[in-house]
């Protein structure tokens, strides 16, 4: 009887704790909604309305002038030795697409090739490479960015997009992507490959026609996540590719300098934020299940 009472008391406390954390979770969710709602509502307001009306008031009308202003006026000027370049929105979108797709696809391809041979072939140095990859992943190297800048400048890679892409996968046998692809190849039965070898097929044929299609879903998710990362990447353009501009770099610049250079108002800047978000919202809606279901982190063993 006393045991049962004790148990009931314990469960009541537990229920209370659960409700407390549930309320916290709801508050967290609502807090994440606040800036988004604020952005949407104010992107339709005029400048006077924005400053005079309460910040969370509904816009007086659904006026798309701010969006039109952003689409027509966003630009980014860069000075190159050969002259001044002006990037307009279509150019920025083009560079965004290139930077989102090409580096992630190329990097995942190189990582996949590394993961395949390390996971499925026995050759001298294999275990060393695997362990090295884990050490590189875990080992914190601080302060080498200055040296990286000097080396990239010497090699002509600084401010050169094609070379930046080609030299991107410098630690292809390390990192989470490698571990995911490594695990994916480990999970594919080797009997399929043996059947191809018996039929006279070579190593490349096994990789291209048997192994690669088997791990394509995992690789596809990584490319997708890479695309999202590439689309959001303004820092690489700010630091390593200052003569180029993607949409992220453009909106970053528009937010800081738009008011000075173009006389842009806060609602026009917010309209810009909405426009720039749209491609990722569409991508997320299309691949929501794939993205959320495959987001898992395992252990680091090596």
């Amino acid at each position, binding site marked *: 009887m006393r045991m049962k009472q004790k148990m009931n008391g314990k469960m009541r406390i537990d229920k209370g704790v659960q409700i407390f954390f549930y309320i916290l979770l709801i508050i967290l969710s609502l807090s994440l909604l606040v800036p988004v709602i604020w952005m949407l509502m104010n992107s339709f307001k005029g400048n006077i309305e924005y400053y005079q009306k309460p910040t969370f008031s509904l816009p007086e009308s659904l006026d798309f002038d701010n969006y039109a202003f952003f689409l027509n006026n966003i630009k980014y000027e860069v000075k190159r030795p050969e002259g001044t370049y002006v990037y307009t929105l279509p150019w920025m979108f083009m560079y965004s697409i290139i930077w989102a797709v090409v580096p992630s696809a190329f990097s995942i391809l190189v990582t996949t090739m590394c993961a395949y041979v390390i996971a499925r072939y026995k050759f001298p140095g294999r275990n060393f490479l695997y362990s090295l990859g884990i050490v590189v992943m875990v*080992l914190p190297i601080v302060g080498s960015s200055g040296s990286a800048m000097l080396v990239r400048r010497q090699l002509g890679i600084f401010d050169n997009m094609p070379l930046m892409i080609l030299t991107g996968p410098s630690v292809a046998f390390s990192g989470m992507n490698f571990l995911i692809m490594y695990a994916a190849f480990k999970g594919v039965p080797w009997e399929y490959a043996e059947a191809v070898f018996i039929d006279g097929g070579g190593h490349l044929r096994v990789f291209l026609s048997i192994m690669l299609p088997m791990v394509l879903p995992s690789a596809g998710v990584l490319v997708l996540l890479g695309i999202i990362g590439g689309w959001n990447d303004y820092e690489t353009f700010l630091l390593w590719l200052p003569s180029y501009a993607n949409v992220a770099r453009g909106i970053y610049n528009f937010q800081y300098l738009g008011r000075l250079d173009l006389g842009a108002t806060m609602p026009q800047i917010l309209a810009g934020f909405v426009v720039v978000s749209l491609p990722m919202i569409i991508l997320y809606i299309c691949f929501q299940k794939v993205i959320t279901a495959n987001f898992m982190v*395992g252990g*680091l063993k090596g």
Partner: protein
Amino acid sequence: MSMTNKSKKGFTTFKVSSYIFSYSFLLYPIILFIIFYVYVNINSIILAFQNITLEGQRSWVGFANFKMFLKGLTESGLIRISFFNSIKIYFINLVICMPLYIVFSWLLFKKVFGSPVIRIVIMLPSIISSFVFCLVFRSFAGAPLQQFMIGLGAENFPNLVDDSNYALGTTIFYQIWISFSTSLIVYPNAMRSIDPALFESGRIDGMCTMWQELRYIILPLIFPTVSTFLIVGFSGMFSGAGPLVAFYMYSAPAQAYTMGYYILVETLAKASNPTGYPQIAAGGLMLTMIMAPLTLLLRHILEKLSPVEG
């Protein structure tokens, strides 16, 4: 006998061809690794003992850069602020966030009321672009939030972004706030991979509370995920610049500096002026020498503590 020789020869040919195939796949990434990881880091070590002019001419200065960095670390200034802020941010994340990640993830895993909607809302920063979300937060948390709070009666409510006294707090809050977006996808997914029969047998054994389920079933089984987050977070303690670039470009208030941001501003942001690189390289080398063994030790301890094979 001749058959055996033939098959032996065939096996050797296959072995050689598999070596050639393996190395051909690895050649390009290894070349890149040697140049952009090994050489860059060796060059950084050498740079730590040198002086560099605006024109790029180098000369040996012994341990002068290390002394300068140590001086900066012991005296008040950007280096000291950056160093302690980085440590502060990691431990605040560890103490406040980790338990919340686990408990919130448990609630989502248990499919509490409204969990599908909560999951989508939590994902918002990723859905509408993390960098746009950062810029929206920066725009919102400054003057608009201040005006809104004053309107509600909080007359002395500060500008959380532009007031240098609140800049670090705002940055830490943003990092914690945004980190739920990733964690509340990763942890519930890890929890979902646990065999449901374990929960059933736990219930039969009398496990009836959330804490018991978390302590005896979930935490031991998602330990590899937790330890990976801990190790990666620890190893990156002095590398990440956080949202400071998005918030302030290169002119963040001194109080908000982190080591990652300091290094970024001193090196990459001054791309055409390499004179500051040696001191950063020296400081980085010292921090690496402290952090590398500590990270490996942490990894070793977590592996020893791990109740499951990772």
